[in-house]
């Protein structure tokens, strides 16, 4: 074991922002469905009645619009990939959910992670600076490779988001929204 403390005194070092890009949405889709020969983009637009029907199932869809990638091989669907983002106390997490044709979650991959100083994470301007950033155009914020240690980050909001996406995809399939 080798550990070298940072030169600066911890308590006096300025807090900085932190960002990591892991995968683009396309890379995640290919990773989850390596056998796919095509990914078809499909939009789900839920109307008010459909939003209500989902809410009646105990799912708060949060958005009426969802973009779904349908993984296909030889024209046969293999599954679905949906990208979403959630905001925690200090972090913005973009993630992709892969769902098999059986409706079960196949894989969840984090696409990017943004750690903020706190308050600005809820400001649209702060979040907007990351739009369009993917792993092919990584941001240079602080040490690119650095890892965070701290009290355990709860990913409850990610797991809640995954459940929401599973419900939305199942609903859309039942109602013919995904072909």
């Amino acid at each position: 074991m080798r550990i070298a403390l940072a030169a600066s005194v911890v308590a006096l070092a300025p807090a900085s922002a932190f960002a990591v890009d892991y995968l683009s949405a396309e890379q995640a889709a290919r990773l989850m469905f390596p056998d796919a020969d095509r990914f078809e983009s499909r939009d789900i637009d839920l109307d008010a009645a459909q939003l209500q029907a989902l809410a009646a199932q105990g799912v708060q869809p949060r958005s009426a619009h969802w973009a779904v990638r349908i993984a296909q091989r030889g024209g046969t669907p293999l599954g679905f990939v949906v990208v979403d983002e959630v905001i925690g106390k200090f972090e913005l997490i973009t993630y992709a959910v892969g769902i098999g044709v059986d409706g079960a979650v196949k894989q969840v991959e984090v696409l990017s992670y943004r750690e903020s100083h706190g308050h600005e994470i809820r400001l649209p301007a702060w979040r907007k600076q990351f739009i369009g950033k993917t792993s092919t155009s990584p941001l240079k914020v602080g040490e690119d490779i650095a890892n965070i240690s701290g009290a355990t980050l709860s990913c409850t909001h990610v797991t809640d988001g995954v459940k929401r996406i599973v419900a939305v995809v199942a609903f859309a399939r039942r109602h013919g929204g995904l072909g």
Partner: protein
Amino acid sequence: MSAHWTRRARPLLGTLVEVGARGGDVEIAISAGFDVITEVQSRVSRFEPDSDVGRFHALSADASLSVDAHTAAVLAAAKELHDASDGAFDVTLGSGPGHWRCDGTRLHKLHDAVQLDLGGIAKGYAVDRAVLAMRRAGCASGWVNAGGDVRVFGEAALPLSLRDEHAGGVRPFATLADGAFATSHFDRRTRSQAVGIDGSQPVRAHVSVAAPECLWADALTKLIALSGDTADPLLARYNAQAWLH
């Protein structure tokens, strides 16, 4: 250097688990690492009724069950640390430290009221096993970070930053190679909880521990939070160092 590392992150163990890898078939190694973490989670989570811990809770007194080798390994480490700390480390959280026993992979429940919570040690164990799986899959260097419980192996030297739990933001703390590091933050509002056997409360601070293995780094943060002593003799036993900050 960063361009050579392949990094992936998934929500597991109730937190974000990040894996970095270089050398060998990194995709296979990363999958192997995540697979082991998923497996450990399914065995030791107290939130899953089908896990070994969930099944233990459903047992009546004087019954026993066969548990997975992962569960048995975590319980053996918990027992060792319980004895080494004169009972301060207690995976029953006071519900009956003497009321369970694990012989090999057979786990005995000795009292109806006893409950197990392996949250203070299983995350570090899962990280260690993931590192082992990655190395076995041919990965030369990398790291596994389960929400702050980190282990680094091979040629990787990982800069560690600490999150400020009050104000947000991260601060550079250290560079870690060939070892493990864990941080817990104890506060009335945070998820990490610890209570001394005499009912004493942990220090209100971030507690970080570096050790060769992540299981011990993870578990020792809880004990150091209770003793408040970064010169605690238990640290030397596990070749560990601790910081309060």
